[in-house]
């Protein structure tokens, strides 16, 4: 009797070990890349400020991470993740944590099958979030710095990933989410794929494009961003000049320009990141008084971007880079 | 009209003014003749001001006023201003307004809808200022004048208005004896020269006795007596309306009304 019991226990233990270790084996790897799928590697050296000190990397929990809001310990692989950050939602689904997510905020519109709720990204409510009984909350915005302490008080770990200022910073966030959700390999794969895609796109830019300038429009009142912002960093590989740089006298990164300034600077490319919020298109821009004298308007070098894709820092930045490279190539061939 | 020799110009007929049911002026009737000086007398709060204001558009709940035969309820705004000039107890003297412009306000009823002055309006104002000895004051700020000077400026506006009836509410409050007399003499000479009927509320009964042709005594909104000063300003009536210490003395044929303290207390 006793001998059969021991065998049973041993079998169960082996089974548990086998199941625990098969997490990453079940994650679908990105189709086109052969990545470093070794499950024992440390996080890729592109991590900057987000250190990950883990007891184990992928084979199990608990895990402790140095999130921007401090040390966060996650006891078990989270299966009820609530994301009230549209970017984090995109990242979670991209790295393979999609089926661990139970609720996302009302503005998380990508991917389409994310479980959208009426949680608010801008004025989050502890109680509303707690109603989903989460075991991990990801947010990008804590308006009164009260949400995270409140979540901690009810024992829910929270990670604050607000807008990074560089692309590397974004990669570090994705990797950190990978570790936090037990999808490290998936995260690393996504990071590598994105970086490669961006580099490949930029590699196709001919030398004639060097020195061209661009204007990035955030809203119709001419708020723009400089090369010192995240988007500016994404576009750094194009080696284009940002016309807003000279206007940003206090280094804030998001100066408001004037019509006179933009017309006078005459950028080669205009990028509209206010198509969804504010209905701006190449046509509406051409109608603005005096703008039709700009070469970009004249030759139609206006890119209408999807606001969300252009303002988030998820894996879709590869698509952004692609769009922009496409426009540059068109411009170069038009000038040829 | 009674035996005063004046042709009726203003008629107050059963005038009543009531707020929330309680009457402040209760069924007051009297007539004022052309060129006559009619005094409206009574204690504080008797309703004198309210009564006078009904002649210039103030609230009236019952009865009516007619001037030169036309019922005032049929006469609006400008037309009424052609007939009645009004000086309240405490006239407003706007800071920065010149004496000339203040007097020119009297011409408003004669101007068009936008109150644009004509050459004749300007000429009339200069004439009026000259008649009151105010020519050198024309560019002075009305708010900078003394009490006596402002009274003359008020009269300038009244004269410029050229209305046959002048309604005055306490023309001499807060003036000393000399200024008081001066102002009343001025009004009297204006009245006589221009044939204006003056209806004035007065607190000074002695002055009323000397200057008014006829008076009305009002107490708590009701008419207690109307007639010549000799008929109305009798000691018994005055003691009833005012207080028992009132004494009426005759000096050279004119009544002097004083209030005498008990002998013991003097």
């Amino acid at each position, binding site marked *: 009797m006793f001998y059969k019991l021991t065998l049973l226990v041993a079998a169960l233990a082996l089974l548990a070990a086998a199941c625990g270790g098969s997490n990453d084996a079940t994650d679908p790897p990105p189709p086109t890349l052969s990545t470093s799928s070794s499950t024992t590697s440390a996080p890729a050296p592109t991590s900057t400020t987000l250190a990950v000190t883990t007891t184990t990397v992928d084979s199990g929990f608990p895990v402790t991470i140095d999130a921007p809001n401090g040390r966060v310990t996650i006891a078990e692989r989270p299966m009820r993740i609530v994301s009230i950050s549209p970017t984090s939602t995109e990242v979670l689904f991209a790295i393979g944590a999609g089926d661990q997510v139970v609720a996302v905020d009302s503005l998380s519109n990508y991917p389409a099958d994310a479980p959208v709720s009426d949680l608010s990204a801008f004025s989050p409510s502890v109680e509303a979030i707690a109603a989903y009984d989460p075991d991990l909350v990801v947010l990008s915005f804590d308006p009164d710095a009260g949400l995270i302490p409140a979540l901690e008080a009810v024992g829910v770990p929270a990670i604050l990933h607000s807008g990074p200022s560089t692309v590397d910073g974004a990669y570090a966030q994705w990797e950190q989410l990978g570790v936090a959700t037990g999808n490290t390999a998936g995260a690393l794969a996504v990071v590598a794929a994105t970086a490669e895609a961006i580099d490949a796109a930029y590699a196709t830019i001919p030398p004639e494009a060097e020195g061209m300038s661009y204007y990035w429009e955030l809203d119709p009142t001419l708020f723009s961003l400089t090369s010192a912002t995240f988007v500016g960093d994404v576009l750094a590989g194009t080696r284009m000049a940002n016309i807003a740089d000279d206007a940003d006298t206090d280094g804030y990164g998001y100066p408001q320009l004037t019509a006179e300034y933009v017309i006078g600077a005459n950028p080669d490319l205009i990028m509209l990141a206010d198509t969804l919020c504010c209905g701006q298109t190449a046509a509406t821009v051409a109608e603005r*008084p005096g703008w039709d004298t700009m070469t970009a308007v004249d030759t139609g070098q206006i890119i209408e971007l999807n606001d969300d894709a252009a303002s988030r820092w998820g894996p879709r930045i590869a698509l952004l880079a692609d769009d922009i490279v496409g426009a540059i190539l068109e411009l170069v061939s038009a000038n040829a | 009209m009674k035996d005063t020799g004046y042709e009726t110009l203003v008629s107050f007929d059963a005038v009543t003014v009531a707020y929330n049911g309680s009457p402040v002026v209760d069924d007051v009737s009297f007539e004022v003749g052309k060129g006559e000086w009619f005094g409206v007398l009574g204690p504080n709060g008797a309703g004198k001001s309210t009564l006078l204001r009904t002649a*210039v558009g103030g609230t009236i709940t019952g009865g009516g006023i007619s001037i030169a035969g036309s019922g005032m309820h049929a006469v609006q705004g400008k037309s009424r201003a052609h007939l009645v000039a*009004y000086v309240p107890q405490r006239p*407003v003297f706007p*800071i920065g307004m*010149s004496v000339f*412009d203040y007097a020119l306000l*009297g011409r*408003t009823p004669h101007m068009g809808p936008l109150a644009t002055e004509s050459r004749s309006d300007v000429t009339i104002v200069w004439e009026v200022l000259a008649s009151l000895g105010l020519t050198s004051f024309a560019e002075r700020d009305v708010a900078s004048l003394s009490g006596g000077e402002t009274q003359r400026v008020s009269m300038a506006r009244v004269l410029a208005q050229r209305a046959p009836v002048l309604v005055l509410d306490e023309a001499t409050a807060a003036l000393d004896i000399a200024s008081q007399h001066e102002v009343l003499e001025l009004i009297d000479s204006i009245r006589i020269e221009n044939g204006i009927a003056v209806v004035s509320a007065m607190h000074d009964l002695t002055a009323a006795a000397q200057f008014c042709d006829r008076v009305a005594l009002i107490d708590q909104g009701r008419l207690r007596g109307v007639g010549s000063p000799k008929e109305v300003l009798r000691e018994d009536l005055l003691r009833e309306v005012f207080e028992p210490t009132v004494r009426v003395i005759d000096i050279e044929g004119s009544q002097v009304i004083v209030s005498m303290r008990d002998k013991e207390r003097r």
Partner: protein
Amino acid sequence: MNAARPASTRLRWWWVVGAAGLLVGSVIVSLMVGSFSIPIGGVLGSVVDRLPFVSVDAGLDDRAEAILWQVRMPRIVLGVIVGATLSAAGAAYQGVFRNPLADPYLLGAGAGAGLGATLAIAYGPDSAGWLIDPLPLAAFVGAIVGVVLAYVLGYSVRSGRTAVTLILAGVGVAAFLTATQTFLQQRNSETLREVYGWILGSLATGSWADVRLVVPYVVISLVVVFAGRRLMDVLAVGDVEASSLGVQPRRVRLVLVAFATLGTAAVVAVSGLIGFVGIIVPHTVRILTGASYRIIVPLSILVGGAFLVIADVIARTVQSPYEVPIGVVTAFIGAPFFAIVLRTSKGVGS
């Protein structure tokens, strides 16, 4: 007999010429200023070229011409219009309420416009999706509704349809509308930046379309206020005495407030709530030239236009290429200027 009023009470011709000169001068200076530099000769040449029967080659390329005539000029013209209208409206309010601290936003026009703008920004559709931009329309309607509410509230007081009652009603209405606006902003906090930007006022987005939009309302407003200037002088002696002079104070007040508000609503709709102009300009003119509205109204119109154009020049240059919101500039230059004028004058009461 003299047929002319005393010299010191007249509207001196050289005041008018001086004010007009100030206006023209400020317009010219404003044309020369901007983050994109255009040579002075080019600016003047281009302006002269526009005169009929004159043809001059200003030597400017298309972009410079576009900046000059599509960006700067409409903004300057709008500045003149807004400044003149707010100043005239301010003079009208001051005259009608016998209060030198009255301004066009006194009866709730400003609060109403702010609420309308907030509603449009928070709940309105994209401006490109409609035939007309909902924001100016909402602001315009809001301004008018604010004043109407003040009148309804003021007139509901049985015994006191006086100027003071109306002012109190206006204060109450403005407070209520502002509170509603604040509440809506909190509920839609992502709109905060846009709403505050609008409230601080700006001529930056001024275009010829905006000018065309406001001109009809402004012209009507200015004509009525200008025509009513002498009636404001009559109102100065108070409602009772004005009534005895054959003027109907409540009716005059209503008409002047209505048309002053019409102009205010129109300019606020396109340029936001630019403050201080409506108080400072007429009051300063009063201190310098005397209290008659015959003089204050026409001069306020000219000086008001110049004042706002100058304020706009400062807004554009002091931290170029960043633009300071014009409401901030008007407050910053208006307040000390006013203090200086007040101290060097004979002093003014209410």
